């Protein structure tokens, strides 16, 4: 039987110290983290992009990733979307007493691997252990900082009528993968989470394209929700064509019998790029040259007719709103 985590590991005492040196420094160690001061000392020159996210994904391990890699990718991507090079992240853990130490170790190793691949360092962290039943196994907060190297940087407020709307690949892969592994709803779907660090591609795009208005990753709430946010922030219409939105057959198939819409499913390795139409082809070329965005597409354009709205042209040529949902989608039978 594998060893189980005890409350003692979060006490700040010797057990905490062992967890830090035996696991965290082993997988995440670097000169900054190793100092174990109250805070990390960072050589960074501003302006700075800073983002935080907490990860509570269930199950912890899924095809294409786990909560550890996801926690790195999510924050790295958010930091990058502001036109920044992500440099440093923090890692705050909430652990449920009784958690399998092997599970924890696999996850911490995954955080380390994902951080190395993304080119960021975990520079400080925090661990709380809560009594059994007070949390669900493990929650991870990551907060990242990076140096902004384009000004004005991309922002959800900067979409302009006439801009092209691009997405970097298929929609809904992460969301459907997670659903397919949920307890009580498990079905086999030949699909993996798209969880990935987009920062290297983002940096390249920003370096080679003179003007990018919006970069955003369509995570929770999916493409529909994220475009709605942009439409509201920029007070424009986002007009998109359903036929141009790539959706994997398995994602469409899974959605069909659960009564879900892939455009509302989360993505964790995709981004929306809104930029002047004249740069669209160049941007698509750069995107498609990267394995993370081989299915990049222009899916529509920014208009001014229905400010704050997303309008979808259906495959048969009809038009309808793509509204933000009230809450999460539930599997349904009618």
């Amino acid at each position, binding site marked *: 039987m594998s060893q189980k985590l005890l409350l003692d590991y979060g006490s700040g005492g010797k057990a905490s110290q062992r967890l830090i040196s035996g696991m965290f420094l082993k997988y995440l160690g670097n000169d900054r983290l190793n100092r174990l001061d109250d805070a990390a000392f960072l050589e960074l020159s501003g302006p700075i992009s800073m983002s935080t996210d907490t990860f509570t994904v269930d199950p912890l391990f899924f095809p294409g990733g786990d909560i550890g890699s996801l926690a790195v990718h999510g924050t790295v991507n958010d930091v990058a979307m502001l036109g920044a090079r992500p440099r440093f992240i923090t890692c705050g853990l909430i652990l449920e007493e009784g958690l399998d130490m092997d599970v924890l170790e696999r996850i911490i190793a995954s955080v380390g691997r994902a951080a190395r691949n993304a080119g960021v360092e975990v520079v400080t962290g925090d661990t709380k252990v809560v009594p059994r039943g007070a949390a669900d196994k493990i929650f991870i907060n990551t907060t990242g900082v990076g140096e902004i190297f384009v000004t004005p940087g991309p922002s959800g407020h900067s979409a302009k009528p006439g801009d092209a709307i691009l997405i970097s690949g298929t929609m809904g892969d992460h969301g459907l993968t997670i659903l397919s592994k949920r307890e009580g709803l498990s079905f*086999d*779907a030949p699909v993996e989470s798209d969880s990935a660090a987009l920062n290297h591609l983002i940096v390249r795009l920003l370096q080679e394209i003179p003007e990018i208005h919006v970069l955003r990753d369509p995570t929770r709430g999916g493409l529909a929700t994220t475009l709605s946010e942009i439409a509201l922030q920029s007070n424009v219409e986002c007009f998109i064509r359903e036929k141009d939105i790539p959706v994997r057959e*398995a994602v469409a198939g*899974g959605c069909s*019998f659960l*009564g879900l819409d892939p455009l509302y499913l989360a993505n964790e390795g995709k981004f929306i790029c809104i930029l002047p139409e004249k740069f669209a082809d160049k941007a698509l070329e750069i995107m498609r040259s990267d394995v993370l965005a081989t299915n990049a597409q222009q899916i529509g354009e920014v208009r001014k007719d229905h400010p704050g709205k997303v309008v979808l042209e259906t495959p048969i040529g009809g038009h309808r709103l793509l509204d933000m949902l009230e809450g999460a989608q539930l599997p349904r039978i009618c």
Partner: protein
Amino acid sequence: MCLAVPMEIKSISNNVAQVEVGGVANEVRLELIDEEPKVGDFVIVHAGFALRRLDREEGLETIKLFEEGLNLELT
């Protein structure tokens, strides 16, 4: 009123069929279907039960005839 989707039967055992749509595999129960289903059939699935076989040849034929009728009348 009743979301029901066609899925293809990949195998059958004990009144349960393994079905697929877009490569996504699921199980459906066969207590309610009126024709003996067989592997390769498409069945219409609702709430975890196969309710009927989908007659895809019939469907294609109907559409083809309809389409021809439309065009005939249009030209």
